[in-house]
């Protein structure tokens, strides 16, 4: 080949590439979530349609590894971590580390779009560090057929009739006597998100005290007392031990549990399960205590190291406060944006197959509205929450497994103290 033909070839190649460039030179924006990729598709497609020069790549990481994923990518200031889901109680820790961009500029819009009670999940030291996305409420599901077979009447969804945990466990034991495999299934088995409720309800508290919630208190008498009761659910065989959160709702769907304490994201899934007839009531409380229903879910944050920071902000605003907010209703969690909330409940109702099911969806809607207004208790908003979440998840699993309650809580207390001394 002559020198001239090489040059000519190179020039042609460059011309072709040059011509092709305008059509393919899209900016790639990255979205990190713990939700399934499909759940993000509607809002992603809507944003791409409105911004033809942008392509959004969605990456999903399981919840158990989600915090570690963000920590490791922030450690290397990864420019491909751009828009990401933020676990609401982690906002203080993440904001204090400089992992979130500030959203005080859209304070008015945020406050107009959400209920006043939802604001704290976005705040750190009075500033907005994340955008509102979803929240959650736990419901007590019961299997109507299994209760009927055991001669037990359905519980009432009226607030005055809210069950105590002791009542639930007694009923569950009776159902087991009638041949049901498990009495009660806790969906988020061992996770702090769900377990905190027992301790808040009994008056033992979240396990953190002090103005900045950095003084651990997980081995008080009240904690030991509540944890001992918690352990008895497993020791007596009412609830199964060590079932991963992702696998746990199968037990209820297969008709192997009389009661199931889980999130509203199960409504649509259970409605589509043939032969499953269920009802819902509000989360129970510890006798002598007060209701304390788990809540909060995901906020949307933007990394200060994002390669396309402005575009990331634009997409984050689109999916929360903008036109994209309506797609939150298609997801598994309860939208924080008031306008998407009604659509979310309507969709759950639409999945009910019969009139009884539709009535249950009405009950569920009423219970959720009441819980969000009066009964929910958030996880502690402290820069030490990430540590608490990790240490207590293992502690609760150990207690379930039959470890001595006081020794285990003492060890957790020491581990929390030791780790907090490093903050």
């Amino acid at each position, binding site marked *: 080949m002559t020198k001239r033909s090489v040059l000519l070839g190179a020039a042609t190649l460059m011309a072709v590439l040059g011509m092709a460039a305008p059509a393919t030179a899209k900016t790639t924006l990255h979205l990190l979530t713990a939700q399934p990729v499909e759940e993000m598709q509607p809002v992603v497609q809507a944003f791409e349609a409105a911004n033809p020069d942008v392509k959004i790549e969605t990456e999903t990481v399981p919840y158990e590894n989600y915090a*570690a994923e963000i920590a490791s990518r922030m450690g290397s200031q990864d420019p491909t971590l751009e828009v990401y889901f933020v676990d609401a109680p982690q906002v203080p*820790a993440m904001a204090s580390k400089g992992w979130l961009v500030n959203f005080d500029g859209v304070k008015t819009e945020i406050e107009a779009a959400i209920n006043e009670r939802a604001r704290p999940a976005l705040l750190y030291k009075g500033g907005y560090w994340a955008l509102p996305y979803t929240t959650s409420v736990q419901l007590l599901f019961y299997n109507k057929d299994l209760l009927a077979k055991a001669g037990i009447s359905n519980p009432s969804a009226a607030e005055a009739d809210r069950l105590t945990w002791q009542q639930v466990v007694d009923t569950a034991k009776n159902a087991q006597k009638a041949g049901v495999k498990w009495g009660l299934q806790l969906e988020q088995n061992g996770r702090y998100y769900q377990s905190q409720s027992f301790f808040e309800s009994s008056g033992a508290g979240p396990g953190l005290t002090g103005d900045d919630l950095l003084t651990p208190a997980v081995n008080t008498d009240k904690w030991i007392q509540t944890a001992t009761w918690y352990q008895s659910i497993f020791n007596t065989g009412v609830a199964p*031990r060590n079932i991963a959160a992702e696998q746990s709702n199968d037990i209820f769907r297969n008709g192997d549990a009389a009661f199931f304490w889980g999130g509203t994201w199960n409504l649509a899934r259970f409605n589509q399960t043939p032969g499953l007839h269920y009802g819902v009531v509000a989360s129970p409380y510890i006798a002598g205590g007060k209701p304390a229903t788990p809540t909060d879910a995901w906020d949307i944050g933007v990394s200060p190291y994002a390669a396309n920071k402005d575009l990331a902000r634009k997409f984050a605003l689109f999916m929360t406060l903008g036109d994209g907010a309506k797609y939150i209703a298609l997801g598994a969690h309860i939208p924080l944006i008031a306008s998407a909330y009604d659509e979310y409940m309507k969709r759950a109702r639409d999945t009910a197959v019969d009139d009884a099911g539709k009535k249950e969806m009405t009950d569920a809607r009423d219970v959720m509205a009441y819980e969000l207004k009066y009964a929910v208790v958030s996880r502690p908003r402290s820069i030490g929450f990430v*540590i608490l979440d990790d240490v207590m*998840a*293992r502690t609760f699993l150990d207690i379930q497994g039959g470890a001595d309650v006081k020794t285990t809580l003492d060890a957790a207390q020491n581990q929390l103290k030791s780790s907090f001394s490093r903050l």
Partner: protein
Amino acid sequence: MTKRGWVSAAAFLLPATGAILALRLWPAAIAVVQSLLAPHATTFSFDNYTYLLNDPTFQGSIVTTALYSLLVNPIQIALALALAVLLNTRLPTSGFWRTAILLPVAIPQSVSAVVWGVAMRPDGIINGFFAALGLPQQPLLSSPQQALACLLVIVSWIGIGFWMTFLVAGLQEIPKSFYEAARVDGANAWQQFWYVTLPQLRRQLAFVLVADTVGNFLVFAPVQILTRGGPRHTTNLVMFEIYTRAFQTNDVSSAQAATVILTAIVLVVVIIQFRLMGSGSRE
């Protein structure tokens, strides 16, 4: 060597040296420097080390790792050696068995962990097997007494086949005449193994011992996927402890200090092993 020779030698060495510098030594240097900076501190100190060495969780992870290493390495090497010797005999189907034993190596450790995790569930296939034999149900991964042993089984399922291949290669290098001479001298099978096979296999065994020891100090995926260090910290191997510190509780400086401590321990153990194996070959 001529000057030109030196230049080209340097040019050939450059990529490897560069890679070692950039991918090994530079991160190691960063780890050492960060391990000397306590949180919020501006001056260097040994605070991170003092904190770690007095922290019961870290102490526990070192003890667990030591116990695990003392068990897993001899078991894996003994079984790998036994299988290698067995499959080196002229069995008609030894090729098939060798492949079958090596196969788990081709499966990522994380995938094996998930599969074993399902098998070891209370309602899993292993308990089904126990039930079929009339044995009581076992808690396996959820028991503080059994979890570490379960991890050992999973890791060995992968490891034994891998290490066996090195030993099979070594066995095939031993001249048949050595065995013939031993037989002429009246050595039985055990004596042939002890006086011919083992000494001739020393080089391969040294490699397997060192590489297996290092590999087992760094076991992470099965812990992270199956037990997350529990129950009751009984499987909190030091690599998982470092991961928890670095990425779960975001205490990067103590994670770096723990990494330095782990590296030091591994180095000391490996040096001792080299000494022990090396001194033998000079005899």
